[in-house]
């Protein structure tokens, strides 16, 4: 059969165009070298945190493996048993600081991301719903948000943890409580803008259900500003968790996060054993800095008002 080869060209430019949308986003993001550096740093932090059980020289949670004779060794010292070198020194219990930091990073990131995700879901749902429904629901919700944001986050978290006690779940509850309001406020303002656009009116004119309009039309279009807020808030959550742990209110001492590691080394600071506090501090700083660098660039790229 001599069928003509029909070029599939109409489909091709469309695919290329769809791809170019992502590429454009990537290119705009990569325009800032600092942001790329931040992204690389964040990638390293995430990989280290995820792979900690496999790449850490020691399991810092296994108290049986720790040797009190190795306590407070400076960076680079060999272990008494001779089978490992403490690259970043050891803490008061003879724990390898490098391993402790890797595991601490894991806890800090997990708490930050989990609380951020829950707060985002809750806040976005309430905020978008408030914008769509309006009326009394919106009024009441937004006044609650105002009241919530009127109190310092650290104060609310401190009181909550004092009541709830210690534990990963409790600190996540505390962080969600202090953060959902930011998401709700941002989601509402973004959804209010979207809600007044014609396509929402058109969707109503088509007789679509309210649930469908909110979930398929309003929510996805309100997402970009929320992503930006989320990056900043995850960094805040990590810092807040570190602060709470430093104050001894966050996580149990058996599973130290970065904040608790810093607190543990605090008493040795003045006796010259700087590494117990400083290295976890550097890890915390690097994590928060990386997230903020990425968040800043995301905000610029996703902001339609900035000329590009």
């Amino acid at each position, binding site marked *: 059969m001599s069928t003509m080869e029909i070029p599939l060209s109409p489909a091709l430019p469309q695919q290329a165009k769809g791809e170019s949308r992502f590429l454009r986003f990537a290119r705009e993001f990569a325009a800032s070298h600092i942001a790329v550096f931040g992204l690389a740093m964040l990638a390293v932090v995430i990989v280290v945190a995820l792979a900690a059980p496999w790449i850490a020289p020691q399991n810092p949670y296994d108290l049986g493996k720790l040797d009190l004779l190795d306590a407070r060794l400076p960076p680079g010292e060999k272990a008494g048993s001779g089978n490992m070198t403490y690259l970043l020194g050891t803490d008061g219990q003879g724990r390898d600081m490098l391993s402790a930091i890797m595991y601490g990073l894991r806890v800090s990131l997990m708490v930050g991301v989990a609380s951020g995700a829950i707060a985002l879901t809750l806040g976005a749902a309430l905020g978008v719903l408030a914008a769509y429904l309006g009326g009394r629901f919106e009024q009441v919700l937004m006044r609650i948000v105002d009241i919530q944001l009127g109190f310092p986050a650290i104060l609310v978290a401190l009181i909550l943890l004092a009541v709830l006690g210690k534990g990963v779940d409790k600190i996540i509850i505390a962080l969600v409580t202090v953060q959902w309001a930011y998401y709700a406020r941002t989601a509402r303002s973004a959804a209010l803008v979207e809600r007044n*656009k*014609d*396509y929402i*009116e058109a969707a109503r004119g*088509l007789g679509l259900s309210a649930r469908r309009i909110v979930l*398929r039309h309003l929510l996805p279009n309100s997402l970009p500003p929320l992503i930006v807020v989320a990056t900043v808030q995850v960094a805040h959550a990590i810092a807040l968790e570190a602060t709470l742990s430093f104050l001894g209110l966050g996580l149990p001492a058996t599973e130290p996060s970065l904040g608790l590691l810093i607190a543990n080394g605090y008493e040795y600071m003045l006796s010259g054993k700087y590494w117990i506090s400083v290295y976890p501090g550097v890890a915390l700083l690097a994590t928060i800095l990386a997230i903020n660098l990425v968040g800043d660039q995301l905000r610029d790229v996703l902001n339609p008002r900035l000329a590009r």
Partner: protein
Amino acid sequence: MAPLLDVTNLVTEFATRDGLLRAVDGVSLSVARGEVLGLVGESGSGKSVTGFSILGLVDPPGRIASGSVVFDGQELIGLPENRLRQLRGRRIAMVFQDPMMTLNPVLSIETQMVEAVLAHQNASKAAARERALEMLGRVGIASPASRLAQYPHQFSGGMRQRVAIAIALINRPDLVIADEPTTALDVTVQGQILFEMQKLVRESGSALIWITHDLAVIAGLADRVAVMYAGRIVEQGAAAEVLELPAHPYTRGLLDSVPANNATSRRLKQIPGMTPSLLRLAPGCAFRERCERAAERCIDMPELKLHGARHVRCHFPLVSA
């Protein structure tokens, strides 16, 4: 034959900070199947709000204060929201003004069209997709199969409006309300879309209400025309008759403001003054302060009276009955 849509004494009000604003004040109109009604007026004359009121899409602080909207024998005012929702998009469809804004930017055309079908019909996704393809072809979009997977930003303004029209007509509605759908488009594209729209309506026997401020569009498209001013209908009748020999001074003014009607390059005639604020509407004829023919009598609100073959709201119509 009873008209498909019969609106009687419709009043829609908005509670604003400065008081109650009556955007639609006692509007009565009707459309039959296969008929095109042009609803003409300046910005703020209440023509769009009339369209939204028919669909029950007036949001607080606005509300329909009184009147009746009978669609195919069924009263729509006071109908519960879920019943209205079943009518919207299925039997009454709306096309909006700005084609750049009426499509959801994050969903593909296919998703949006299929969604419109499935909202009202118990069809399979494949069948809905078939229907979407067919509609895209009918509104004049080339290679609909590849266009279907695309997103709104990949379409030009004219193409988007075609898509919006295809979505509006996808469930074969009995009544289409088009709110200035060609205003944002090029004149050439506007012509094509008008032609397609007219063809689609005539073929399917639907009724069409075309809301616009553009008299040229009305002249080419509408069977009958209703002219609105300050929330009221001031003249209503056959399009040819009203546009040829307007009876209301406001219709006359509108026609005189169209450059094409002013062949010799004299200064364009304008209507003096501004559209009155609906919040501080003086008693009597709303147009009287801008009207050359205004007299003492105009302090009394003229009724919309039968005048020959048309209805006019004026004490001193320009044409004798």
